[in-house]
């Protein structure tokens, strides 16, 4: 047994404190008058002794509590015999598999270096192999079988993910907590500067963990990339489409680059752009983007090769389609809302939506969204048809009017209408919007809603639905309701231009565009994301099955996952296809993270600092762990806690006795 911090033992002097306190406490004598002290002499020592015996247990407990706490701080340990396999601790081989390791022969060199380290391990030494990009993967258990370790190293391939040294350090810290044996981490990486976490502290490793960095640097650092592409996810008019791309250079001299635009493998346009040294240049492809109807796999690519080819093309998906079909259904005077909506859509998003007026109860199957203007009480068949349309991912905007209020409930979503409120125009008695949820897509960047006057509104019980706007009397004005995969937006006032002046206000244009985009998902579709992005598959677990195809055409989800998974991590570069119920399909292009494009390594000082800090942690624990010691302080602390609990119990007993 030994002690790592003997300086704390000086605190044992504090043991005198409870002794002194006990003596002082016992010394307390009650005064009493006596006729004469003629025959008395001072005699306290015997008194203290006698009283002290009564509290000897309490004193012993307090002494034990203090002594145990002091010993715990002095970090005692016991030596134990090490197993042969533990003599050298555990070696962890962490190999970077991020996209940048695919440049030149970096990964092959890293693998060779790792194999060399495996070969140099002494007999009986154990090691684990792990690869890391944005996440870490343990490829083997701790093993002394060198062949098995090498077999785990060889198959590692570069992935499109970015490397994150912060996540690697967190994984190593977790790994370090699993066992107390000393660990040596061999890191094989190109140590990109962009892989560094924002705070250096996130790179810290556990005590007893030694870091050996094997820097795998490429010969060529200059790298150009298509940093971003701005293209419409939905292509309505190919003749006016426009694609913008940004070419960026990292560590590059000024040079001209040839950029091509391809769609479904066919080159559509080509441009040459002058990129300044380590700078950026913009490329614009105007004048037509001829792709057939449906999804097109497009890319903007650099024709010249450089240090990292994986980032030389930027993928994006384009959906060539006709304008979204919006069905308007209204009754009686409510039909006047149709003209307001048609005019509004024509002015803000030409060609994006095509609005059709149909009677209630017609088929909504192919509609992107449905507008019900004061629908009243729908027939059960019509309501069920509409409900199945929403469950399949459709969107409905319902403007509540007198007919609906007379029915007492809003069709499809079933929210109850508790009454209506009327205000006269002449006396300026109206309600205005007092509260809006600016984070909601429908109201995001909403204009002057407060200037809209509502003369008639209906009080709706929102139940579990989400209220995103309220009137000045706190009654809900806009309510979002979810049903299956679809969604509904309820406006608690008609769109006839009489119950309110919303159709006459500028905010009406934004409201209609944003709400229809949201309801039809037209605004939520994206053409491209980066690798490892999470893509939302469904809002609720009860939604229909979703099929996801990888860029290679494989099913990414099992049958169970396809029925339940809320989201999926897109971990491969390429075009992913998502097929939903009702024949709805989406295509998402996945690109490698552009932070991988910067091949500049982290400063050597940072590398040394990282190794040094890990080394100092290791040194502090070296005595304790390299000798095969087992720390005793947790036991001492546990016993101190037990002593404290018993002390409280005994002391309370004494107090009760004294009080009695």
């Amino acid at each position, binding site marked *: 047994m030994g002690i790592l911090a003997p300086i704390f033992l000086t605190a044992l002097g504090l043991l005198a404190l409870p002794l002194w306190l006990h003596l002082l406490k016992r010394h307390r004598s009650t005064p009493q008058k006596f006729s*004469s*002290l*003629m025959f008395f002499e*001072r005699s306290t020592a015997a*008194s203290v002794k006698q*009283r002290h015996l009564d509290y000897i247990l309490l004193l012993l407990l307090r002494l034990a509590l203090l002594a145990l706490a002091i010993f715990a701080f002095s970090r005692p340990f016991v030596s134990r015999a090490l197993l042969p396999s533990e003599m050298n601790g555990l070696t962890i081989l962490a190999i970077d598999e991020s996209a940048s390791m695919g440049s030149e022969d970096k990964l092959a060199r890293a693998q060779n270096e790792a194999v060399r380290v495996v070969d140099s391990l002494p007999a009986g030494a154990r090691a684990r192999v792990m690869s890391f990009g944005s996440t870490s993967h343990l490829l083997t258990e701790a093993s002394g079988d060198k062949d098995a370790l090498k077999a785990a190293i060889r198959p590692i391939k570069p992935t499109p993910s970015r490397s994150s040294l912060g996540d690697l350090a967190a994984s190593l810290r977790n790994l370090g907590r699993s066992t107390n044996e000393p660990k040596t981490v061999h890191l094989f990486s190109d140590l990109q500067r962009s892989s560094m976490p924002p705070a250096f502290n996130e790179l810290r490793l556990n005590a007893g963990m030694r870091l050996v960095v094997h820097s795998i640097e490429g010969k060529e650092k200059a790298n150009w990339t298509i940093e971003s592409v701005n293209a419409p996810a939905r292509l309505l008019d190919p003749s006016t489409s426009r694609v913008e791309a940004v070419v960026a250079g990292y560590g590059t001299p000024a040079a001209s680059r040839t950029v091509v635009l391809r769609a479904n493998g066919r080159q559509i346009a080509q441009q040459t752009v002058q990129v300044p040294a380590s700078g950026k240049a913009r490329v614009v492809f105007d004048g037509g983007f001829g792709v057939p109807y449906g999804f097109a796999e497009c890319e903007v690519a650099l024709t010249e090769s450089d240090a990292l080819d994986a980032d030389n093309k930027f993928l994006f998906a384009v959906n060539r389609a006709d304008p979204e079909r919006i069905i308007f259904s209204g009754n009686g005077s409510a039909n006047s809302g149709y003209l307001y909506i048609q005019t509004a859509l024509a002015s803000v998003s030409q060609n994006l939506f095509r609005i059709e007026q149909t009677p209630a109860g017609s088929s909504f199957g192919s509609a992107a969204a449905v507008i019900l203007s004061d629908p009243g009480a729908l027939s059960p068949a019509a309501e069920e048809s509409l409900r199945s349309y929403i469950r399949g991912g459709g969107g409905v905007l319902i403007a509540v009017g007198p007919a609906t209020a007379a029915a007492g409930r809003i069709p499809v979503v079933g929210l109850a209408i508790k009454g209506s409120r009327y205000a006269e125009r002449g006396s300026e008695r109206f309600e205005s919007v007092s509260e809006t949820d600016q984070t909601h897509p429908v109201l995001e960047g909403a204009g002057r809603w407060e200037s809209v006057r509502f003369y008639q509104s209906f009080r709706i019980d929102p139940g579990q639905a989400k209220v995103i706007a309220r009137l000045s009397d706190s009654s809900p004005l806009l309510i979002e309701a979810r049903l299956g995969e679809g969604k509904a937006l309820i406006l608690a006032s008609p769109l006839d231009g009489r119950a309110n002046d919303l159709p006459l206000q500028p905010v009406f244009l934004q409201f209609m565009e944003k709400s229809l985009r949201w309801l039809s998902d037209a605004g939520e579709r994206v053409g491209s994301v980066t690798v490892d992005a999470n893509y939302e598959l469904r809002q609720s677990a009860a939604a229909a099955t979703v099929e996801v195809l990888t860029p290679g055409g494989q099913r990414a989800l099992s049958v169970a996952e396809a029925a339940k998974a809320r989201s999926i991590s897109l971990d491969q570069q390429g075009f992913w296809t998502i097929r939903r119920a009702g024949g709805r399909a989406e295509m998402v292009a996945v690109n490698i993270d552009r932070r991988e494009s910067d091949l500049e390594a982290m400063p050597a000082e940072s590398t040394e600092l990282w190794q040094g800090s890990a080394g100092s942690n290791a040194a502090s624990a070296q005595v304790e762990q390299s000798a095969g010691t087992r720390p005793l302080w947790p036991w001492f602390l546990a016993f101190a806690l037990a002593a404290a609990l018993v002390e409280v119990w005994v002391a309370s007993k004494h107090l009760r006795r004294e009080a009695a």
Partner: protein
Amino acid sequence: MVQRFLDPQILAGIANLELTARTVVDGFIAGLHRSPDFGFSQEFAEYRQYVPGDDLRYVDWNVYARADRLYLKRYHGETNTRLTVLLDRSNSMGFASQGIRKIDYARFLAASMAYLAHHQRDAVGLIAFDDEVRDFIPPSSRQGNWMKVLHAIDRAEPGNRTDFAKPFLQFQEVLRSRGIVLVVSDFYAEPAYVVKTVAPLRFRGNDVILFHVLDPMEVRPVLNEPKILIDLETGHELEVSPEYAAGPYRRRIDSHLAAMKSQAEAAGLTYILVETDKPLDKALREYLAIRQGRL
């Protein structure tokens, strides 16, 4: 039954000191009716032959008629004496461990003695003292004097430190005629000093009785825990352990009491130790025995 009226705890509940004294003495006397040794009042004592100068009022003329000789008929009650009570009213007499203070006990004792003496037509006087003579009632057998004595006893409250030397010097000046002197005190002084101070009273023909009044706690102290004892007279404080009170203190107080008794008796003084939890009859018996001896 009547003995319980001699219990100091019961007497402490009687506000009137005269009534207390009467209760004590009457109760005591009622308990003596079968005793052959003691008597009082006009009890016949003896015949004595007339000698010239005797008061002719006491001649028994019936005997003279039968025997033709002059004899005087003597009664106990006719032998009067002077009783002077010296009452210590120092601060230490204010101590009480349970119920009754030493000064209260001493007052009951003094009042009872005075009443008994007054009842036998003895002259009764009182001197209350601490380090000075605080009250002095000269001995007299008149009814008014008896009331003065009672009042003086009643107002005797602990006041100051004890100092035997100064008051006893004054007593020697006052107590010129012989009689009985009762000294009621806790005698917190060296026995030799007490005896040396008190003994001169005896030289003047007085019978001196020392009533050593102590609380039981002073004789057999019991402490459950260490205590800081505060001297009632000096105000000094001293921490005392239970072990000391049970051991060394008892040996010292026993030694002190033994020295008091032996040295007092050696000096011809009657020494009686009374504890405040004991009935008063022991003291009364002692007093009557001594008075009997004076007849």
